[in-house]
């Protein structure tokens, strides 16, 4: 049994930690991690709950393959109602923390209520205790990790924590583990901060035992690893270039949102690309990239480890930033770079370090800065308000805003609202490049039409990790489709969304889906877990999870009107590149998508659909 069959419930208001048995009926229907934790969440929390209130809950959940030898089996997700969107939030992270929680004997932690004063949770195998964290409040995640290791005298203690952004209620604050792995999106860190919970420190020495058929499992995982190793993207591209392998590719196809989506190609893309990270710097002759790095169990190792140029303006005389740390992933490079027209690789890397250090999402942050810069160009926001001149392309403005947002100083708290609230506050809500209040990632729906539908219908707001049709439309995985075409994209988006829900619920990384389909995942799950994890059933499980999330959002007040894209993408055509002259064809795809899903025209699952999915 690859589940530990045990969950930890922490009542922060009462200060209690209790153990309960995992609901195995739900596990059979929702697998684990994203699916299973969301099931718990929707059963226990009213859809109308105010995200930053004590009535909201926060779940840290692993999947059945977390902590096993399945490649990338180290993932965990944080599930809550997101303060940025008001929708279901589910942010996934790698590193080592998730596996450690599993090794300690827990499938998930459900956190409820609000502590009267700052606390952290310490878990050592079966023992979970809340400790005073007042001495840690106000500290960065980089300070918290070594401090807790010293306090508990455990070099192997794994820590998931919030920085000052989470404390200060930045609406896209992240939960950071292992210094630079993030449950990054939708503001799960703000919910953690609202509960006065600074960190969860975990040590597990019990391990994961009870794999259903160990021999078959080892065989299945070895076969699946061979698929990853033999695939051009997961075997070569990602280890060497990381997700940054996409920077030049996406720019070339004219789907690189630039300067708050005013343009679809960025002239500075090459300066912030994977190739640029590999190239020796003029200043010190060293490359920005030090090495690649794996998360727990991962045989891809796409993680970037970078070192800053010590003479760069951002870190002169700041040796605390001279050590190696988490470098730019494509999304961060885009959001901090192209979205603002900034092409200073070191500045982006520094801003990324700050995002990790104080725990906030570089996508939403960078995209919000893009809106701020546009408002500055328009004269709506001024240097006096902002504390700095902030035209598009200003690296200094970007890094200044990163520091302000991290510390909650100056204009930082405004940027911490996210672009939807900020642009509305300053009278230009159309300039917010968001869906359901969450900022877009790095693919322009005018150049990759399927992504427009994926963004519009994503259950956690605009997101690339809910249905990554880029794989098909650009990379030809598993089959090539035309990125400029809307036909057939409804079915494609649905298929990606449902499959992704399974990957996210299994405990593995969605990046394996560059090489794996559910055909590769099914045998690993079948060998590890009791239950029916055949390909057919996995497709149903994925669809069930998607509809469960949708039901929650609908009950929380979302309607088909929220399955939309900003006016700019629907009315302002792409100016250059292959997509020149195109807008996002959402209106053509959305009705077809609803039909594919078995939803009514209002975007509500029909009774037949719910019955088919046993919902």
């Amino acid at each position, binding site marked *: 049994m690859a589940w530990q069959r045990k969950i930890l419930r922490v009542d922060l208001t009462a200060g209690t930690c209790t153990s309960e048995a995992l609901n195995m009926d739900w596990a059979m229907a929702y697998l684990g991690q994203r699916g299973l934790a969301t099931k718990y969440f929707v059963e226990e929390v009213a859809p109308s709950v105010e995200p930053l209130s004590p009535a909201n809950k926060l779940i840290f959940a692993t999947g059945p393959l977390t902590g096993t030898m399945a490649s990338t089996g180290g993932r965990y997700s944080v599930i809550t109602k997101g303060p940025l969107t008001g929708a279901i939030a589910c942010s996934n992270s790698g590193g080592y923390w998730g596996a450690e929680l599993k*090794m300690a004997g827990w499938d998930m932690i459900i956190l409820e209520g609000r502590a009267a004063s700052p606390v952290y949770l310490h878990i050592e195998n079966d023992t979970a205790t809340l400790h005073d964290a007042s001495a840690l409040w106000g500290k960065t995640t980089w300070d918290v990790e070594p401090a807790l290791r010293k306090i508990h005298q455990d070099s*192997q203690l794994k820590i998931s924590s919030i920085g000052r952004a989470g404390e200060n209620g930045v609406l896209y604050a992240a939960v950071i583990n292992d210094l630079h792995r993030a449950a990054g999106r939708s503001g799960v860190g703000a919910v953690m901060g609202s509960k006065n919970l600074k960190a969860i420190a975990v040590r*597990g020495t019990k*391990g994961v035992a009870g794999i259903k058929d160990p021999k078959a499992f080892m065989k299945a995982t070895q076969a699946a690893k061979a698929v990853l190793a033999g695939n051009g993207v997961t075997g070569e591209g990602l280890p060497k270039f990381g997700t940054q392998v996409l920077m030049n590719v996406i720019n070339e196809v004219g789907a690189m949102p630039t300067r708050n989506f005013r343009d679809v190609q960025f002239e500075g893309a090459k300066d912030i690309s994977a190739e640029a990270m590999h190239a020796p710097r003029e200043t010190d002759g060293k490359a920005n990239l*030090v090495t690649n790095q794996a998360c727990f169990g*991962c*045989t891809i190792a796409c993680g970037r480890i970078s070192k800053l140029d010590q003479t760069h303006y951002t870190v002169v005389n700041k040796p605390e930033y001279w050590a190696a740390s988490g470098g730019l992933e494509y999304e961060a490079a885009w959001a901090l770079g192209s979205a603002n027209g900034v092409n200073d690789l070191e500045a982006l890397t520094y801003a990324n370090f700050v995002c990790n250090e104080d725990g906030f999402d570089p996508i939403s942050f960078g995209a919000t800065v893009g809106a701020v810069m546009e408002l500055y160009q328009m004269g709506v926001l001024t240097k006096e308000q902002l504390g700095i001149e902030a035209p598009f392309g200003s690296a200094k403005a970007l890094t200044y805003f990163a520091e302000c947002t991290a510390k909650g100083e100056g204009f930082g708290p405004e940027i911490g609202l996210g672009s939807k609230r900020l642009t509305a506050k300053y009278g230009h809500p159309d300039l917010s490049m968001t869906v359901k209040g969450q900022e877009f990632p790095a693919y322009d729906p005018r150049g990759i039409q399927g992504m427009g539908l994926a963004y519009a219908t994503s259950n956690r707001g605009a997101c690339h990790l809910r249905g990554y049709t880029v794989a098909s439309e650009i990379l030809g995985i598993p089959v090539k489709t035309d990125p400029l075409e809307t036909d057939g994209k409804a079915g494609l988006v649905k298929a990606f969304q449902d499959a992704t829900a399974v990957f996210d619920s299994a405990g593995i990384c969605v990046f394996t889906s560059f090489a794996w389909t559910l055909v590769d995942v099914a045998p690993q799950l079948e060998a590890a877990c009791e239950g029916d994890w055949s390909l057919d059933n996995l497709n149903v499980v994925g669809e069930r999870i998607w509809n469960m999330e949708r039901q929650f959002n609908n009950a929380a007040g979302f309607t088909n009107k929220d399955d939309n894209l900003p006016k700019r993408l629907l009315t302002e055509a792409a100016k250059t590149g292959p997509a020149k002259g195109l807008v996002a064809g959402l209106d053509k795809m959305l009705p077809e998508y609803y039909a594919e899903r078995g939803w009514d025209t209002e975007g509500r699952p029909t009774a037949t659909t719910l019955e088919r999915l046993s919902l």
Partner: protein
Amino acid sequence: MMKSLHIEAAKCTGCLQCEMACSFENYGVFNPAKSRIKVFDFHETGLKVPYTCTQCAEAWCLKACPVDAITKDKSTGAMMVNEATCVGCKVCTIACPFGTINYVADTGKVQKCDLCEGSPACADACPTGAITYIDADSTGIDRMRTWAAKLENQTAGHAD
């Protein structure tokens, strides 16, 4: 030719497949805490270093054992802990200067790398070739042995 584990730290990504493979081989459980090979993660530099027993010639563990529970396997050259004989006194854990023989509270015995009877699970599991099992005279294990020799000179230096 005797084989050794050959570690090329620069190739290590920190995935810990080796640690899981080790614990699975020896305990049937995925549990890095019970692994006999440990990956050190130097986050300041980005370097990760898989680290385990080199089966050193000095064999401090073997010599310090008061009950003859550690013997040298003739075919692999590995120092082997005989669990039936080990009383769990932990003297070997303070005698071994590499920290690569450790007490396991669950079993009440010590454990160390035994080269899996000549087919090390860690090397099999390593996806990047950072850990290989090859002829001893071509391994970079010399570096660890250099340090073994340095301590040896402190404690038992021959031919002064």
